[in-house]
């Protein structure tokens, strides 16, 4: 791996990328607040928390985590492909990302349905923060899937090129961030 550190200023062409990083900085604050509410409610309702956690299925969520991490890798491959001018590679990898995103959402829907059947609902003290945090994250994944579909469609009309693929790069940043949030949630909600 290269050890080169880039201290060059940001070029004017990268304005949207700067905007994406500013947005992600804001998302850090947003998710920090959500995660904190979840953790504090877990501390306040310690008994209920232990009871609730017995309903969670670690293997299913671990599988969902593998799916999301894998999707992050395919976004990197998509960006790699288009940086080498390979439009077909971009298309194929974006398609895999969409499929993996939908698989993640299906896994989450399965988990939620199982919890509802076991009586864990939004109105419970621990269910409310749990569904809020995982629901907002799931919404981010859903938006990401829609965004990827849009990129795929727009690539058919006006193909991204080796020189012009900032749209793919910005989407990649968003998707990786959603992956990072899940990495944190997986640990804090399900494993600890």
């Amino acid at each position, binding site marked *: 791996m290269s050890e080169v550190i880039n201290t060059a200023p940001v070029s004017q062409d990268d304005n949207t990328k700067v905007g994406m990083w500013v947005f992600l900085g804001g998302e850090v604050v947003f998710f920090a607040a959500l995660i904190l509410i979840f953790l504090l409610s877990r501390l306040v309702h310690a008994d209920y928390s232990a009871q609730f956690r017995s309903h969670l299925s670690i293997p299913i969520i671990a599988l969902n985590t593998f799916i999301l*991490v894998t999707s*992050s890798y395919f976004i990197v491959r998509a960006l790699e492909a288009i*940086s080498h001018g390979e439009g077909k590679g971009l298309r194929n990898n974006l398609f895999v990302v969409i499929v993996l995103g939908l698989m993640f959402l299906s896994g989450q829907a399965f988990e939620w349905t199982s919890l509802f059947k076991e009586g864990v609902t939004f109105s419970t003290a621990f269910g409310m923060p749990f569904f809020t945090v995982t629901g907002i994250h799931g919404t981010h994944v859903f938006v990401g899937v829609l965004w990827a579909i849009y990129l795929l469609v727009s690539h058919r009309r006006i193909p991204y090129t080796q020189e012009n693929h900032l749209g793919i790069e910005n989407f990649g940043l968003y998707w990786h961030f959603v992956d990072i949030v899940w990495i944190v949630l997986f640990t804090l909600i399900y*494993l600890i």
Partner: protein
Amino acid sequence: MSHETTQRRANYLGIFIILIVLTLVETLVSYVQQEAIKFPVLVVLSVIKAVLVLLYFMHLKFDSRVYTYLFIAGCVLAIPLILVMTIVMPVIARYH
């Protein structure tokens, strides 16, 4: 567009395999009963995974430092929020 920076790429497959292995280790560690071991190990593994994604998949290691500062700014802004909520939330909960 930062062509030079994206061309200076890492071994993405290697990073991906590390992330998968760490996730597997995390899942196995979650079944350990000793909380004193489990908690720090899981937190450290989670941080390592997040940093790997940030540095390599999001190219912070290779891109302009401006992006790193922007992201750190978000983390810094979250600190007062976390402090205030940590103090206020238990107090509110006590009255419910």
